[in-house]
């Protein structure tokens, strides 16, 4: 029997994004685009400030999904649209708040719809995952 119920809202988790964590992600992922690290460069290409890698934000949401599933090995499908950039000013800890609703259950899997916000603004659209039970 599943530990989940259809319609259940799963507990939210908060992740901190700051300039140091962007450097750590850049090194781990290999994505060294300067818009994610260099404020002067980011502004020179018309951005408000340094922005987080979309895949970093999605990766943190993936961590949320893994933690709800019990292990990252239980995640079977994961998708999201990058709707709003996560702006990361120097010296600021930006809070990414993630939660999810169970929208479908079968004998084998649960389907989740996920919400990810920074400063109460949704930063991902259509975020969904399928996890093994």
């Amino acid at each position: 029997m599943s530990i989940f119920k259809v319609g259940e809202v799963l507990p939210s988790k908060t992740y901190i994004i700051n300039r140091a964590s962007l450097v750590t992600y850049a090194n781990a992922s290999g994505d060294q685009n300067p818009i994610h690290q260099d404020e002067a460069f980011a502004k020179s290409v018309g951005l408000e400030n340094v922005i987080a890698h979309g895949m970093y934000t999605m990766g943190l949401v993936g961590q949320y999904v893994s933690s709800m599933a019990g292990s990252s090995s239980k995640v079977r499908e994961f998708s999201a649209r990058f709707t709003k950039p996560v702006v990361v000013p120097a010296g600021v800890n930006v809070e990414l708040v993630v939660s999810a609703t169970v929208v479908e259950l079968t004998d084998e899997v649960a389907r989740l719809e996920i919400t990810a916000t920074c400063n109460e603004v949704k930063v991902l659209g259509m975020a969904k995952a399928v996890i093994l039970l």
Partner: protein
Amino acid sequence: MLNPDLVGRTFAGATSTTITAESIAAFALALGEPETHLAPPTFAITISLEQSQSVLVESGLDWSRVVHGDQRFSIYKQLVAGMQIQCDSTIESARVMAGNEIITVRSDLIESGETAVSSWSTLVFRA
């Protein structure tokens, strides 16, 4: 502009990548993931995006104009250290909207002849 004849074409990765324990652990730690021996669900991007980039740059697109529009993963098999991955990329669709070119590339991470992860990246090349 992408040559429309390339839509539907698959580009086989020239080399295979061996996944290391260090690369998985660094990626997991960057995401605050306690299971540092298992590739997190988005780990495939470290292999797939580079392959998509080389295919699209060779096809004449300007990577400095790119914005990631959306991303999807289907995970059939858990990626772990020691796997040898061949990455094939297929340009699934290309369209122009308000002067921006929107291209979806599917990358298949293949291990021992079987697809372990498929990764769809929709990339927007700004006008």
